[in-house]
Structures are given as C-alpha cells and as structure tokens.
C-alpha cells in the first residue's frame, strides 16, 4: 500500500470505526452519511492541500481509498511514491498564505 492510500485507510478506519481496506466501497456498504462525506472531503482537502469543487463531486472518485488516491494524484500531480509527505508540506505552505 502506498503512502497516500495508507493515510486514507487510516482516516477511514478511524472515522468508520472498523478496518477499511483500499478497495472497500463504504458507500455501497451503507456506512456513509452526509456527515461522514463532509469529514472525508474535508480530510482530503486539508491533508493533501487541494480544493474539492462542485466539478470534482463524482462519487466514483471517493467510494474507495484507492479511488481517492487516484483523485489526489490527479489533483496534485503527485508521483507514485513519497507523494503524501510532499503534498502535505505544500498545503502547509499554502495555508500560511504563500
């Protein structure tokens, strides 16, 4: 499991209070409500330093940890490895107003 995916599964497992694997579809399993969706999107935005606009709101991009990883890579242009750390640093720089 790569760095981005492991961070996402860690978040999902904590939020849903169960072990979530990279291909688990928590929407299909009926585990997701709007509060969870808000928590998830807010996590992705703040942790990976990106903005989820209305045009990004395709459920298929968010239904599994692996799909979110692909979404994060598309939005940030992150490479295959070591990407999460760099993205997080970029976010912190952005948050400081640079």
């Amino acid at each position, binding site marked *: 499991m790569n760095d981005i995916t492991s961070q996402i599964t860690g978040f999902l497992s904590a939020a849903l209070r169960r072990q979530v694997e990279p291909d688990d579809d928590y*929407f299909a399993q009926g585990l*997701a409500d*709007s*509060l969870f969706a*808000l928590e998830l999107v807010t996590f992705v935005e703040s942790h990976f330093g990106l903005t*989820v606009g209305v045009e990004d*709101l395709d*459920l298929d991009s968010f239904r599994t940890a692996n799909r979110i990883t692909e979404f994060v890579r598309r939005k940030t242009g992150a490479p295959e490895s070591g990407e999460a750390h760099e993205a997080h640093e970029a976010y912190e720089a952005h948050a400081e107003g640079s």
Partner: protein
Amino acid sequence: MSQQALQHGAAPVAIRSAAWYLPEHTLPITDVRTLDETERRTCDGLGIDTVRADDALSSVTLAERAARRALEQAGLDARDLGALVMVESRVQERFLSSEVTRLQHLLGADNATTFSVGGLGCVSITPALLTARGLLAADPALDHVLVVHGSKPAAALRYRHPVTVNGDGGQALLLSRSGRIRVLDIAQLTNGRYWDLFHIDYRDRPTAQWREQCTEPSTYSFRLAMETRNHLSAMLDDLLRRNGIGRGDVAGFVSQNLSAGSFTFLEDSLDIELLPACRENLRQYGHLGPNDVFLNLHTALDRKELAPGDLAVLINVSPVAAWSLLLVGTGSQEDTA
C-alpha cells in the same frame, strides 16, 4: 456596519405579523411508523422527540387557522389584503381544484390577487418572499401580502428515510413595506440535476402505500451534501459581501429543521453555530417544510436568543435541489407601522 451598507437596492419587504397553527395532538417519535429496523434506528436518532399531527386537518385548514391569527394580530381585515400567496401543498386534497382560491374564499380575501408558488420543497418560502417583494415594489397601492403554507406530509408515512419526520403545522406571514422583521436580502440557487432525487410514486397504488423515496441514497449523502457545502459557503460569502457586512455582524444563524445531524452538517460546513431555537423546535415539532425557518426565528426572538436590531441569516436547503439564504433584520415593535 452602516444602514447604507445594507441597502444595496432591493425593494423593502418586512413581516408585519406572523402566526402559526400547530395541532394540539402530539405524536411521539416512537409511534411514527418505519418500514424496518434500519429505518427505525435512523428515525430514532434524528433528534426529534415528537411531532404535531392531526389527520383530520387539511393543509388548507392549517394555513387558514394561521392566517386568521396573523390578520388578527395586525388588526387587518382579509378584505384589505392586496395579495394572497400560498406556498403550494405537498399534495393537494383534490386534483384540478384550487386550494388557494378555496383559502381566499374561506378567509374572505375577495380583493386579494391570489395564486400559489412552489416547486422547491422547503425552499419554496423563498419564491413566496420574492413574489411578495415584487408585488409591493410594483404596485404602490398594494400594501399587504399574506404568504401562507399548511405543512402536511405527502406520503402515508411521516418518516422520510434517512432525512426527517414531517409534522403538521400552518404558517402565515403578513408582509408589508415595514414591520418588525425586515427581509433585507434574498439569495436563491437551484440545480435541476436533482429534480427527482426524492419522489412518491402514486398513480399505480392506493394512498396508504405512498412513500417518500430517495432514488439514490449515495447521491444524497455525498454529492448533494458536498454541493450544499460548496454552494452555501459561496452564497453566504456573497450575501455578506454585497451587504457590506462580515460574519461578526450576524447575530444568529437559523436553519430548517431536518435532523440533529443536518444541523451539525451545516455548522461544520459553514463554520457557524445555529441558534438553540432550531434544535428545540426540531425536538418538539419535527420538520414543517417551508415553515421551519421563520418559526425558528420567532422562537429565537421569544427566547431572546436575538435582540432588537440584530441581523440573522436564515438557511434553507431542499433536495430538488435548491438553496436559499435570507438576511433579516430584527427591529423593535415601534418599527411595526
């Protein structure tokens, strides 16, 4: 904040009197029927203890009783109404007939320009206000517009999974150019993509089997929810900017009453706190459709959660989908002309 900043050109519209009629019979949430255990758990976790319910009262009767109270409060005869605008019922008692002209007849509002507005679920109170504002601006001889709605569930079951429980209640707002509550600005946005997300199939089944159904639960809980966050955030920023005010100038935020979870969702999405009156009314009355936000505002004023002169923002969301923000200013009784 200056008064000039708040007057960006919109014609004045204010609430001269407001009244509600809530049936006496109280239905505990435990007596609200659900279809299975999953629904039962969700229903019991909504933050609703009771709803008012009287199956003998139609939406027109609920609206009529509220209307009579609002007219009495203002000391106005129904014949002096310039316009009667009904926020349409979820479901008419009869097809082809007119509920709004029935209400006109019951009230004796013979001189009122009379019609219904709607199409936006709970948000339909907003087009009613837009209509009233337009009528008052367009016709100097027209002084009073009565906006009414009778809230009744459309389906046989009061529970709408996984959203809320519908209660019964009537509301009447007597609108004029001046009054204690001034509607300073109105923002509304719709997205027809969701027009059929919730619906009731009725043509092929008895009314006892009518059921409010969400056709795509994941669309409701994800895409529409996040679209709501993004749209309301942008709408709120714009509403405040065009009125020359900041968040610190808003003394209170009021929402419609769907569930405790929906309140948390709005608070987290917009980084606001809703006035306690919202949770109190949700607990007692459940969801009253387009009537929620002004009932909550009224309760907040009664409980002194808002003071005279305060600004408040009223938030309405409908899954059809529609979003609305109302900027209102609360005044003293002396403002009521």
